[in-house]
């Protein structure tokens, strides 16, 4: 649905050139919710804006729905943009106008008849659960309501793709969640492909199926959300994953681990799926000569699945610990040794 291939983009800045994108390639399939995560200045917005031609690449190509953007003239590009909705962090609504007027704008621009506009606006407002705010002025709405209006406006022209630039970053956690649920419904019930960017890993965890991690204009890691959360490779990815999955040993336990004089390993275990993990841990505990301490545990829901995370301290003879590690691997857990730096 969206293909970005070997795209580079450089901005001439006051203090030298800014390489906003360096040889970036991503591919978004129809029906996906694809998330791009990265710290501020990583180039996320620039990448997103390539998709509707608000930004043109210096190198590389952007293909949307089989159409190469570079080959389109202005009028064709405008037509394509009507099939791509966009939602913004700052909402970018006309504050002095009513909810109806805001949602109707894209339809008016497209020359849709008055009756059809009325009908469609009512429809999308019902979808975002704001029918009762039809005649309210945008300035009178809360942040979450404004974003619902933003989403309704983006959906008015029946787009196939929705681009979200930090759509929840200006909202509190509870409102964020309700907006994310709404985006999920947009994806499932309307069949809209969503490409979103965020600096919050929770957003990726909650609704995305694929994720790309960006750093300094590059995509450093990409894949299915469960894989990336399970085995983050790049250092940035680990930092992001850590924001939702705590793999740190509580401070109090660190001294316990450090003061241990016997041979030991501290292991981070991730189990994906709903298989019960207790048998494995119970088995480990029953191994003669092996001492197992649970230093941390938490459970995360993502992609309709469950990821359980344990931090175990294994104490005993080296061979016994190695055998335990093998058993863990055999049970299908993602395991990594945590190094305790002195």
């Amino acid at each position, binding site marked *: 649905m969206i293909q970005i291939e070997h795209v580079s983009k450089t901005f001439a800045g006051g203090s030298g050139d800014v390489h906003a994108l360096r040889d970036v390639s991503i591919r978004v399939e129809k029906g996906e919710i694809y998330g791009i995560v990265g710290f501020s200045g990583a180039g996320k917005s620039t990448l997103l804006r390539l998709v509707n031609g608000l930004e043109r690449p210096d190198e590389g190509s952007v293909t949307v729905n089989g159409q190469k953007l570079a080959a389109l003239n202005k009028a064709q590009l405008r037509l394509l943009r009507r099939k791509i909705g966009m939602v913004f962090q700052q909402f970018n609504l006309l504050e002095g106008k009513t909810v109806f007027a805001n949602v109707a704008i894209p339809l008016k*621009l497209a020359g849709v008849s008055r009756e059809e506009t009325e009908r469609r606006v009512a429809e999308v407002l019902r979808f975002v659960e704001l029918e009762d705010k039809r005649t309210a002025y945008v300035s009178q709405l809360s942040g979450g309501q404004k974003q619902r209006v933003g989403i309704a406006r983006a959906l008015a022209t029946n787009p196939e793709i929705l681009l979200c630039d930090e759509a929840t970053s200006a909202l509190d956690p509870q409102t964020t969640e309700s907006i994310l649920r709404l985006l999920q419904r947009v994806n499932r019930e309307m069949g809209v492909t969503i490409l979103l960017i965020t600096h919050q890993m929770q957003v990726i965890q909650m609704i995305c199926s694929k994720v790309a991690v960006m750093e300094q204009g590059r995509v450093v890691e990409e894949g299915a959300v469960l894989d990336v959360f399970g085995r983050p490779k790049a250092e940035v990815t680990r930092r992001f994953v850590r924001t939702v999955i705590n793999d740190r040993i509580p401070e109090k336990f660190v001294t316990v681990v450090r003061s241990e004089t016997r041979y030991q390993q501290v292991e981070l275990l991730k189990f994906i799926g709903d298989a019960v993990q207790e048998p494995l841990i119970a088995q480990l505990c029953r191994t003669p000569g092996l001492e197992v301490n649970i230093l941390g545990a938490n459970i995360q829901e993502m992609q309709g699945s469950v990821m359980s995370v344990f931090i175990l301290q294994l104490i005993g003879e080296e061979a016994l610990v190695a055998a335990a590690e093998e058993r863990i691997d055999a049970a299908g857990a993602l395991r990594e040794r945590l190094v305790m730096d002195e």
Partner: protein
Amino acid sequence: MNPASGNAQAAAFDFPVWFKQTFDIKFEKLLSSLGDTVYMLGWGLIIGAVIGFILALLLVFCRKGGLWQNRVVYAVVNVYVNIVRSMPFIITLVFVFPLTRLIVGKTYGSTAMLVPLVIFISPYLARLMENSLLEVSPGIIEAAQAMGATTWQIITRFMLPEALSSIVLALTTGTVGLLGATAMAGYAGGGGVGDLALTYGYQRYNLPLLILTIVILVLFVQLLQLLGNKISARLRAHR
């Protein structure tokens, strides 16, 4: 002492006569002067605002990072606006005489004065409206582009409605400035209240007339400002 004569005086109070006696001009003269001022002010404002808006759009769109980013056009318009704004009106007036003659066919009368007035006020309005348009958040324009709006639609459906309240205030300020210029234009052959004050009031040492014209001009400005503020506030009501 003679009640009859007192009665006769009261009954025969004649406003035009009283006016002529007090201010040394006919009342009709004042009315026609007011008419000239309103004529120059009105048309000067309308034509000046249209040209000013076009200049403002060029300034906003051609600037760095603008929709039509174009250094040459921006520089030319910017310098033009600065030059005209730094010229006192009386200089502009004399300077454009040839152009006035070319367009209107003569260099006196209120219609002829519209030429220098428009040339004088449009860059001023352009600067004020440029500021108003720059207040429109870039995000709104980005959203408009993302919806597939044409440039014309971006101007008429997003920028104008967003900036309108601020533009009204800009126009109000501009109108007050224009009123000052019409006084000078009047003196140079355009007629109007300013002309009245200078030629009849000042030069003939007619103090009452001078005061009357000042009162009229002050009221005029007050009224304009009040109106401008009201309209602007009404437009801003829901933000």
